[in-house]
């Protein structure tokens, strides 16, 4: 079957989709967007977390046919999504219409942080920069899902308590870090966001 939906703000079409296929498979294997990771395929690990009409979900548990006409944001579009939220829709998000990231740009998207080593910096979302600055990335496999979940938390809860952060990230497993640096990263991003609002 054919599925039409919006990915990172741009209309996309997937053909020859098997009826039992997951959104995760379509993103990774048909659209060339491997940022959302495939690990447990049963909603236990959160590494495939994407926004579906703004709501964080496990892409492995959404049937491809269910996203017809709906809006998906993946980690590849997160930087543009966050920038757009800041510029055009302060305080809210937007995944539709002419805003967004082309599929080609999303496929080529790489993290190029301002760490002085990577040459010219590409814009990162604040949560991505905070993960780097706090040293919250080890093997990196869980990172995309955590970024999408954490970004949504900061969108809706600008000054989260530690309890809020733990709750928001409770569906994302990390087997390397012991979570402390990840919590630090979210606290850092929240603090920077607060500073930006105040100044």
């Amino acid at each position, binding site marked *: 079957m054919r599925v039409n939906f919006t990915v990172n703000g741009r209309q996309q079409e997937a053909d020859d989709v098997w009826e039992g296929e997951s959104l995760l498979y379509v993103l990774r294997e048909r659209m060339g967007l491997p940022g959302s990771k495939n690990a447990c395929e049963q*909603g236990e690990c959160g590494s495939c977390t994407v926004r579906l009409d703004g709501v964080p979900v496990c892409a492995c548990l959404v049937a491809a046919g269910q996203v017809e006409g709906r809006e998906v944001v993946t980690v590849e579009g997160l930087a543009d999504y966050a920038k757009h939220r800041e510029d055009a829709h302060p305080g809210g998000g937007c995944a539709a219409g002419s805003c967004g990231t082309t599929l080609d740009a999303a496929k080529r998207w790489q993290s190029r942080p301002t760490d002085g080593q990577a040459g010219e910096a590409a814009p990162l979302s604040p949560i991505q920069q905070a993960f780097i600055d706090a040293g919250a990335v080890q093997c990196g496999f869980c990172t995309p899902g955590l970024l999408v979940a954490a970004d949504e938390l900061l969108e809706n809860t600008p000054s989260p308590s530690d309890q809020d952060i733990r709750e928001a990230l409770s569906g994302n497993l990390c087997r390397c870090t012991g979570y402390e640096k990840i919590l630090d990263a979210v606290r850092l991003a929240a603090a920077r966001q607060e500073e930006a609002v105040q100044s």
Partner: protein
Amino acid sequence: MDFLRPASWEEALAAKAEHPTAVPIAGGTDVMVEINFDHRRPEYLLDLNRIGELSEWEVGQESVRLGASVPYSSIMEHLRAELPGLALASHTVASPQIRNRGGVGGNLGTASPAGDAHPALLAADCEVEAESVRGTRLIPIDAFYTGVKRNALEPDELIRAVHIRKADGPQQYSKVGTRNAMVIAVCAFGIALHPETRTVRTGIGSAAPTPVRAKAAEDFLNAALEEGGFWENGKIITPAIAKQFAALASGACNPIDDVRGTAKYRRHAVGIMARRTLGWTWEQYRGAGRTLEGAA
């Protein structure tokens, strides 16, 4: 496999009548796991996401009519006052990502003894609105669970909504697991005080082939509370009554040994949860003006 995408409830009923083997999919948090792992290859998937009314609820005089696909996150956020036990249970479901997709209709459709909503539904008392092209019927929750992962639905029926009695007293929910998130219940216990009818109802999860009420424990407690005038005098329930209530709740279990826990442990834990949740709810009942909302 065929993917059926009805745009309305009527279309969904027609599709289910035409293809009774079609597997309804809403949040997908059960169905997709089975498909991903090749445990199930349904001939037809019946997508219910396009039917907006399934994600809506109405708060009536006596009950809340909860659409089958209202996600757990909405129950936690919007229905804590009306359905405190179910809101607490919803908060124990998996993770935020799963709670954003899954709902009570799926829990009932799957009818796993470990489904988190069941003990709260049994304790609050509710009716399941099942519909087919032949008509609508309301199935009392006490008659809904018929076996391990079996329910009273006919092959052509779909769950449209659940009519849950609004709380008229404190409700609590307790679940045993290895951590706070992403846990299938080792066992679970729900309790609801119904001061208007001077009754207490309970629900036990993951400790019998189906979700069950601890009826003997309820009968004992109802009689003891009546006899001691507890509903009127608001006194602390005596330890002897609480102990007997716990023992009878434990006795209502018919558990198995499995990877999550032994039968012996489950019996023991259900007794402990029964005593504790009775204590919590009774303290809420005695404390004048204290909120009826769950702590979720």
